[in-house]
């Protein structure tokens, strides 16, 4: 039995790389069965604690994993993997905290909700470490399939199902394009390998005399990834899915899958398609530029706060794609990681405010924020900090992450794109400040009762707000820290 022995040998050698995501998968499976028999399906409080604990444990395990590569070079643990895994875990924890008020409106099926979040995060943790097109594709799908269900989770609400259907159909379409692109690259490389490092060498030799297969394949993979991160013109699903999904899931979608997909984006295009950069740099620049322009301009005329954040997140993705364009993969990954981390902090704070207001039957429309400063000064101040930081107003944390990203882009020679990014940032300041102005300078509509914030919410709000304000003083040191963390 030499085959079985070698299989067992390689499994025992390589399995430790996957302990983090595997722990999540096992925990989520046990939660669905037999966990629900012992605890009861609807015991929201217990399930939220169990899910948070599982996430923290998986995060600790993943951070302690020794760097290395395994499974025939399909999975790799390095600084980039750990950095983005940390972001996904953090986003998951925030989502679970934010879910509490909304889930109280639901009568049943809460085990599945938490289990799906855990499954989806395990997919993301696998995705950011994947170094083979096979593992990239399947972990991407594990992540996406769970998010489709979560978007359509409120199955008695028409909006939620509609958002889920739209997201699902476009997602399935894009995954078809992505897979076809992968199959073309596989064919162009002679049908022997899907490993990113090996593909890089083969494709570079094949495409040196202009190969149509390689060009079409890379373009299709690019389109597939652009769909996942919602870059223009492949963003059509995102505003609808954001608006219709349960609000905590909207927060989740704008943080975790984006972080994971961008991490994979950097790895696939930086290490796998590095040798054929001429084929994809121009199209990707167009996607980045279009995302900045359309994201910011379309956000101007939105009445719904969730849609506004959806369009603004398209614009933020446009900025982050500058990091993917960078020919220095490590520096690009660092800049994206830093941007994503600060984005996560600001976004979670903003969504916490929206969800809190929504619990009282408002918070969807920008008009609901009118006069918030008079009714709840502390909340309004926190929201102002988040929005100003999202806009990238200089002393705040959001400014520094933008600064590093744009500096990198200029160093890499993307001057036109950077100028475009700066101009569109100015546009962005308008619609963020618009909300701030309506909180501070407009009269509230009617009398609205005050309800105390729950402890967990206060915690998220205070921590995010404090982080942004403290980060203001440490901005220049931030990149040094990221260098240490992401470089590992």
């Amino acid at each position, binding site marked *: 039995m030499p085959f079985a022995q070698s299989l067992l040998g390689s499994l025992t050698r390589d399995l430790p790389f996957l302990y983090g995501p595997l722990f999540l998968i096992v925990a989520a499976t046990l939660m669905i069965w037999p966990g629900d028999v012992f605890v009861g399906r609807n015991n929201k409080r217990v399930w939220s604690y169990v899910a948070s604990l599982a996430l923290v444990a998986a995060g600790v395990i993943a951070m302690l994993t020794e760097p290395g590569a395994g499974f025939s070079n399909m999975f790799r643990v390095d600084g980039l993997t750990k950095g983005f895994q940390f972001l996904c875990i953090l986003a998951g924890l925030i989502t679970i905290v934010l879910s509490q008020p909304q889930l109280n409106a639901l009568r049943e099926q809460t085990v599945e909700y938490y289990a799906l979040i855990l499954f989806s995060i395990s997919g993301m943790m696998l995705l950011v470490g994947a170094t083979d097109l*096979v593992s990239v594709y399947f972990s991407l799908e594990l992540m996406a399939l769970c998010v489709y269900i979560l978007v359509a989770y409120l199955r008695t609400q028409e909006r939620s199902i509609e958002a889920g259907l739209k997201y699902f159909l476009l997602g399935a379409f894009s995954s078809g394009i992505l897979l076809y692109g992968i199959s073309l690259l*596989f064919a162009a490389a002679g049908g022997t390998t899907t490993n990113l490092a090996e593909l890089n060498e083969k494709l570079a030799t094949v495409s040196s005399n202009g190969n149509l297969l390689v060009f079409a394949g890379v373009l299709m993979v690019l389109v597939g990834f652009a769909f996942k991160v919602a870059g223009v013109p492949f963003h059509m699903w995102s505003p609808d899915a954001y608006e219709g999904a349960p609000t905590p899931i909207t927060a989740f979608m704008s943080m975790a899958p984006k972080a994971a997909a961008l991490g994979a984006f950097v790895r696939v295009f930086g290490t796998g398609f590095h040798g054929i950069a001429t084929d994809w740099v121009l199209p990707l620049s167009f996607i980045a530029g279009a995302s900045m322009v359309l994201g910011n301009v379309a956000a101007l005329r939105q009445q719904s706060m969730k849609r506004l954040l959806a369009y603004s997140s398209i614009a933020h993705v446009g900025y982050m794609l500058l990091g993917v364009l960078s020919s220095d993969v490590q520096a690009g990954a660092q800049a994206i990681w830093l941007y994503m981390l600060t984005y996560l902090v600001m976004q979670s704070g903003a969504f916490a405010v929206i969800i809190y207001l929504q619990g009282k039957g408002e918070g969807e429309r920008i008009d609901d924020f009118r006069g918030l400063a008079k009714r709840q000064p502390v909340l309004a101040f926190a929201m102002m900090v988040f929005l100003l930081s999202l806009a990238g107003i200089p002393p705040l944390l959001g400014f520094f992450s933008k600064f590093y990203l744009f500096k990198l882009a200029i160093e890499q020679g993307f001057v036109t794109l950077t100028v475009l990014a700066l101009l569109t940032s100015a546009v962005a300041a308008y619609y963020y400040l618009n909300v701030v102005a309506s909180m501070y300078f407009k009269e509230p509509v009617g009398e609205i009762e005050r309800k105390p914030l729950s402890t967990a919410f206060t915690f998220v709000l205070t921590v995010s707000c404090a982080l942004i304000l403290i980060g203001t003083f440490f901005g220049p040191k931030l990149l040094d820290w990221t260098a240490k963390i992401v470089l590992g």
Partner: protein
Amino acid sequence: MPSMNLVLLISFLLFSIGVAGVLIRRNALIILMCAELMLNAANLNLIAFARHSGTVTGQAFALMVMGLAAAEVAIGLAIVVALYRKKNTITVDEINLLKG
């Protein structure tokens, strides 16, 4: 051994039919089927080129893609059924509560 260009041509035809179906047809179920057709076009490429080069990577990949396609259809059909119960239609043009 058929020419590899022929394989590419056929898979491209399959893929184009899938893309055209997704873009033109308005029935959610047909769109779902066309998306599956796109996956199968990719499978054809994977299997043919793996066989051509005499390795198994691509064939294993194709097998797993089939499993994934089944999972995707299960989720898609569940969402379509939920929608049908609510609205009594699965025509995507009539699903316009959220405006892009």
